[in-house]
């Protein structure tokens, strides 16, 4: 058992290692030969067309799907971890932003602190910080069901960010956010990774991902097409091959950006 607060991370040892990871369902490969290392200041952006296996990859990484091959968290085979140990290491933001009961935004965010076995008590400072980092402090006492889709998405991201787990896995965290909220959210993710708490997230916002992520993992039909830093990705034709449309990558004063067409 790993006691909370005693999770030690060394620079040269990956927090997460995948070697030839497969996910099979109904005799079909959902993921095939996935390999990557997640080091302590990595921000890995998963990109690829709809149905490529991004969510499958993230759910497997979060321990919600069974996989074949070597998938390790902190040098230990992921399937050997108890769900409680995994919860202390990984915070996961699912793509579905659904909630069953009309709760206040603050209560929803505080759910991120209620890891099994830990008392979710007076952690309101963390909740406040998380809300403030995404610029949504003013929503804290509103009921989530009265909020707009984008506001709700940011509350859910705050819920995932509030956890003290070192690794964050987020499935399309920028979905339904406006441009300024997208920028704010991805900057929060990049800052978190730079401070030694790595992030794996799926994106459709390729320009933003190229600008802020440290590595890009491109998948299509469950296969890895590329896994490289953004500077290498923009030199290659991997994006065009993944999506089947022509991608044009260029530099702007803010960093890389892309346009696409036929």
């Amino acid at each position, binding site marked *: 058992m790993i006691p909370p607060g005693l999770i030690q991370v060394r620079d040269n040892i990956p927090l997460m290692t995948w070697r030839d990871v497969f996910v099979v369902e109904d005799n079909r490969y959902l993921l095939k030969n996935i390999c990557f290392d997640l080091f302590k200041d990595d921000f890995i952006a998963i990109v690829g067309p709809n149905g490529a296996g991004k969510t499958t990859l993230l759910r497997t990484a979060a321990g*919600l799907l069974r996989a074949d091959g070597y998938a390790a968290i902190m040098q230990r085979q992921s399937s050997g971890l108890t769900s409680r140990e995994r*919860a202390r290491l990984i915070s996961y933001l699912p793509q579905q932003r659904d*909630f*069953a009961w*009309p709760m206040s935004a603050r*209560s929803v965010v505080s759910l991120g602190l209620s890891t099994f076995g830990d008392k979710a008590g007076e952690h309101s400072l963390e909740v406040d910080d998380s809300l403030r980092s995404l610029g949504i402090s003013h929503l804290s006492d509103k009921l989530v069901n009265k909020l707009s889709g984008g506001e709700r998405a940011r509350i859910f991201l705050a819920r995932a960010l509030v956890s003290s787990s070192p690794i964050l896995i987020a499935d399309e965290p920028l979905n339904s956010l406006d441009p300024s909220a997208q920028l704010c959210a991805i900057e929060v993710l990049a800052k978190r990774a730079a401070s030694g708490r790595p992030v794996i997230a799926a994106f459709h916002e390729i320009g933003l991902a190229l600008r802020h992520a440290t590595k890009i993992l491109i998948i299509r039909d469950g296969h890895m097409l590329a896994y490289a830093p953004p500077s290498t990705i923009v030199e290659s034709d991997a994006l065009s091959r993944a999506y089947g449309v022509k991608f044009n990558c260029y530099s702007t004063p803010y960093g890389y950006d892309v346009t696409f067409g036929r």
Partner: protein
Amino acid sequence: MLSRSENGARTRIIILLCFLIFGLSLSALFVGPVQLSIHEVFTGLFFPEAETGLIVRELRLPRLILSLGFGAGLGVCGAAAQALTRNPLADPAIFGAPQAAAFGAVLMLSSGIPHVLSFYLPLAAISFAALSMLVVVVFVVSERAIVSVLLVGIALGSLFGAGTSFLLSMSENPFAVTEIVFWLLGSFSDRSFVHVGLSLPFIILGCALLFRCGPAYRALTLGEDTARSLGYNIGLTTAVTVLGIALTIGAGTAVVGSIGFVGLVAPHLVRAACAGDPSLTLLPSFLAGACITTAADILVRCLPSSGELHVGVVTAITGAPFLLYIAMKKQNSFSGVRG
């Protein structure tokens, strides 16, 4: 966590419900065909030799304990069923528990082997509720999704409901049919401490199991994936919930028959004061269930009627319009958003 005002609202509703339970319990000892004075009730309660001791201790007290205990059990079962399925219209009946318990008891009655007030009746009801729950649990172990558990529960409920009707239509003895129909309507009258002893321990055990699941219900608010990523074992939570509901509903239905709508209504009465948090809803639902059932039982004793009205009829008559109200009220004030 909760802001001060929300916590205060929950504390206030708990205190209010405790006072209500105290008041209703006292009234329940006074109300009945025989008019008793305060003095007579208290002497009857504390001095077994007293003239009124028989009425108070042997008739009204077990009836009160059963209505409080089973009502509380129904309330917390409803809150747990709604929390687990994340559906505001859920109720223990969707797991097939009361239908299976009723079938077990009717099977016993129609076989004609035992006397109506024998132990076989409750025992059969408990075993059938447990059997139905066992089938549901087997599905939980093999299949994790809550939706499939619900489908199994609905299928079992319909099966046992049909089985009960079949037994009724096959019955040769018209008196037995009348007896069964009345028993199915649910009533607390003519229940003794034997009934209390047979059902209350199971109800307490069942409720304790459900209260233990509170934190998991809270995590389930944001969906199964989120709850699992927070370290909760949702398969285990489902199994424990199913077992808790089986014990509570099986034991309760065995001795008092089917009492509908309490499990559905009680959580909704208190949810707003609990800021929607399903783990905070359990205790107020427990108290509210006891209040509703005891109040309904007092009401059936006060209403002028040829025989005594059945408490299940009263809860259904008041509960069904409430269900319509839930259905008609804007959906988002009762539940959250999917998708």
